[in-house]
């Protein structure tokens, strides 16, 4: 009677029960699943069950630290004694079936003594993981040559070592109804803007999905606008970039089993900013950053300009170029817009083929595409040789974007621009540019304007977005995102100007 009442008050608990019953329950859940190891031992007339999934646990640890003491020590085992005597930590107790099943899957080993109130579990997790390696997608010349791996633990470890501060918060959120996955919300609690943290937390917690595949997928679930072509969160595989950004007051998100971290809020300019700018001296860093802006502009504008000039505005072309351009155009049977589209398409094919194929073959594709096909296309009279140069230049320019996502965006934008140029000439190009400006102004990243600090205009932030000032002058954090603590350090004496011979 009393037991019954007990059971009623604690409805979810399946214990106490006989080992056989337990075995049946567990085995039922793992139907047709040969991986569950369920061993029963008898020690001092007490039945003890030890069960785990063999490849999810570390077999050495199970044998040496769990089974050996358990069977060697001659004792009457009960729950508390096991906890005390077995030289493993930490021991957890579980009495709900869901808990047991969930932890079983991620590699905990369970010990249950017959008729006890709870099972004891040890996290003897065995997780296969890749060693940290060099970054593949965001390569840098200077700076740490390390990339995130698929293991969240490793990633957290790397992040913690970079930001050794008690300020660093790593909130744990589980996302996914059917197959939950651990997601960490990472920020500096004394710097990060409260609103950003709350918004991000809210978005993560409110996510009602069955599962998330990757952090890139997650970032698409939580971004502000899904209709735009522009990425709104920076996804990086570089721990130094991740830590730098988090350290300056933004928010990072790491997802289990994903080698990329999400950074939010991001601006358009952060996509064109490489960590290398920071490691370079400020003048070179500024130069490279401005170079990238110019490259993006060229990439979007160059082919459409060619199309517009050749289709409508022959007056624009200087006399000398006119002859070269005209002669190379004369052989081509298509209108300029078709010509440009064919070649752009070809370049995109090459890029995609190069990315899909194994590295060694991929390089060959580059040579085959660049040299042989390019040559053949011109000789066959399908495109003009000038256009080859134009397209190659704009493709090259688009590859300078540090973020692969942004590079792709830029390349895709080119197609509507070519169409507009082919239809309305210069007017079409300007139309496209105006449309882009308006569009960019409307985009928000985590509720913050995408074009900050240019609009809304913040003079103090320009040195972090458009160019790079010497570090002595970068004593403020990013004002546009209103961090809790604006000043990084006191305006140093170094800034003070000295007179000659002082």
């Amino acid at each position, binding site marked *: 009677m009393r037991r019954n009442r007990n059971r009623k008050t604690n409805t979810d608990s399946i214990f106490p029960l006989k080992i056989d019953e337990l075995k049946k329950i567990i085995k039922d859940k793992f139907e047709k699943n040969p991986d569950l190891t369920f061993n029963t031992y008898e020690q001092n007339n007490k039945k003890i069950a030890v069960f785990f999934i063999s490849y999810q646990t570390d077999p050495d640890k199970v044998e040496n630290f769990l089974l050996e003491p358990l069977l060697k020590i001659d004792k009457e085992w009960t729950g508390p004694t096991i906890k005390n005597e077995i030289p493993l930590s930490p021991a957890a107790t579980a009495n709900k079936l869901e808990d047991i099943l969930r932890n079983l899957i991620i590699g905990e080993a369970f010990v249950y003594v017959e008729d006890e109130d709870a099972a004891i579990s040890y996290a003897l997790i065995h997780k296969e993981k890749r060693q940290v390696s060099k970054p593949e997608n965001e390569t840098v010349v200077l700076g740490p040559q390390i990339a995130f791996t698929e293991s969240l633990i490793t990633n957290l470890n790397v992040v913690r070592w970079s930001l050794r501060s008690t300020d660093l918060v790593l909130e744990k959120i589980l996302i996914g109804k059917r197959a939950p996955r651990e997601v960490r919300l990472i920020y500096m609690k004394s710097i990060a803007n409260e609103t950003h943290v709350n918004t991000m937390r809210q978005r993560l917690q409110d996510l009602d999905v069955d599962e998330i595949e990757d952090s890139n997928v997650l970032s698409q679930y939580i971004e502000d606008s899904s209709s735009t072509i522009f990425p709104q969160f920076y996804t990086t595989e570089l721990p130094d970039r991740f830590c730098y950004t988090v350290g300056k007051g933004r928010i990072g998100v790491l997802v289990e089993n994903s080698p990329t971290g999400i950074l939010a809020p991001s601006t358009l300019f952060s996509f064109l900013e490489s960590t290398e700018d920071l490691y370079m001296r400020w003048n070179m860093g500024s130069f490279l950053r401005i170079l990238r802006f110019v490259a993006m502009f060229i990439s979007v504008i160059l082919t459409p300009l060619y199309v517009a000039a050749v289709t409508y505005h022959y007056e624009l*072309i200087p*006399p000398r170029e006119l002859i070269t351009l*005209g002669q190379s155009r004369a052989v081509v049977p298509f209108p*300029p817009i078709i010509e440009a589209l064919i070649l752009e398409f070809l370049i995109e094919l090459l890029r995609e083929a190069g990315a899909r194929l194994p590295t060694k073959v991929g390089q060959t594709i580059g040579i085959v595409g660049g040299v042989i096909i390019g040559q053949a296309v011109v000789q066959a009279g399908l495109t003009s040789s000038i256009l080859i140069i134009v397209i190659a230049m704009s493709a090259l320019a688009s590859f300078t974007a540090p973020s692969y996502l942004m590079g792709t965006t830029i390349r895709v934008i080119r197609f509507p621009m070519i169409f507009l140029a082919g*239809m309305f000439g210069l007017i079409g190009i300007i139309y496209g540019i105006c449309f882009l400006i308006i569009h960019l102004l409307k985009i928000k990243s985590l509720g913050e304007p995408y074009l900050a600090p240019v609009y809304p205009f913040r003079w103090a932030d320009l040195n972090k977005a458009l160019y790079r000032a010497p570090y002595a002058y970068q004593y403020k954090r990013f004002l546009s995102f209103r961090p809790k603590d604006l000043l990084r350090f006191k305006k140093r004496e170094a800034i003070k100007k000295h007179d000659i011979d002082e």
Partner: protein
Amino acid sequence: MKNTLLGMLVLLMVLLTGCVQPKPIEELGIINTRGVDIMENDKIETTLVFLKFNSRDQNISKTITGVGNTIKNARNKANFKSNFQLTPGQIRLEIYGKTTAEKGLLRYLDTLIRDARVSDTMYLTVSATTANEIITSTQNQESGMNIGKFLHDLIERNIKDDTIPRVTLQDFVHMFYDKGQDPYLPILSIKDDAPAITAMAIFQGDKLVGQISLDETLLLNLYNKTFNVAPLEISLPQKPFDKFQRKSNQDGHAEDNFYIVMTVINGESKTKMVDVQNLKFQTNINLDVSLLELTEDINIKNPKVIKLFEKEIEKDIKQQYEKLLSKLQEMNADPFGYGNIYRTKKPSGNLTDSDWRDKFPTIKVDFKVNVRILHHGTTP
């Protein structure tokens, strides 16, 4: 959703129907040079040099003629003879026949100014005979030569060298509409089977009235703009330099004059009106020159010699200017633009054409030339 779909549909329709007629360059005959001649029956004959782009043919320039009542009409007539659409957007040079220029250029300028497609930087020239002759002069020679480009570069180089004044459409129109100044254009004629600049045509209003030599053109140019590097050749009398001659001429003094060539490093002029009532002007011309070549061996180490040189050169240039002015006064054309200065001095600020035509022949100008020889090369 329905709205967006509808919007997309409208957009698509507009875009599909709204395309502008494309003009890809390979389908165009891009006119590069245009010659305008007036014919006896008052019709206009245009000679067009245009670029056509053809994969097979190396010779991209072609010449075509058309006759019509207006320039546009003549072009359309010419277009019947060509499989390319002739377009005026890249005209770099326009040549007028001599008789055409004498009858007045105003009617041809109108089409150039009105058409927004036509460039303001094109050059205008006058042919010593007919425009057609200049353009077709080289046709029998080298087949690959692009006559339009050749003529354009010929004029451009001379302008860059400061040997002739700038003669773009804009300059001509500007001078033409300024009441106190008359325009000028270079004259092309055929020398040794090839076109060359031989003189400068002086206009009275839009009508050609006379011409001045290229040496005189240099003076005109020196008056109108600031010089940087331009060669200047002057003949000086031998006599004053006799005593500085390094080795006496064995043959005796065969010639009375000798020549010196110098580069004008910096030349500028300033004109002011000293007496409004009597139409008296004073023009100061300052020249910083560097000696390049002497036909006589004279020792110029001596500062006195330099001073002497300067004085003689000044005298000579002053004379040349006075000669040029009287020549122009005879033509009653004022390319110097003294009328502009006169206008600014008039209380009403207005100057009518006829007013200045009456007054220009009577103006007096005091040319003050100031020459400084800064360098004389490596040999003293």
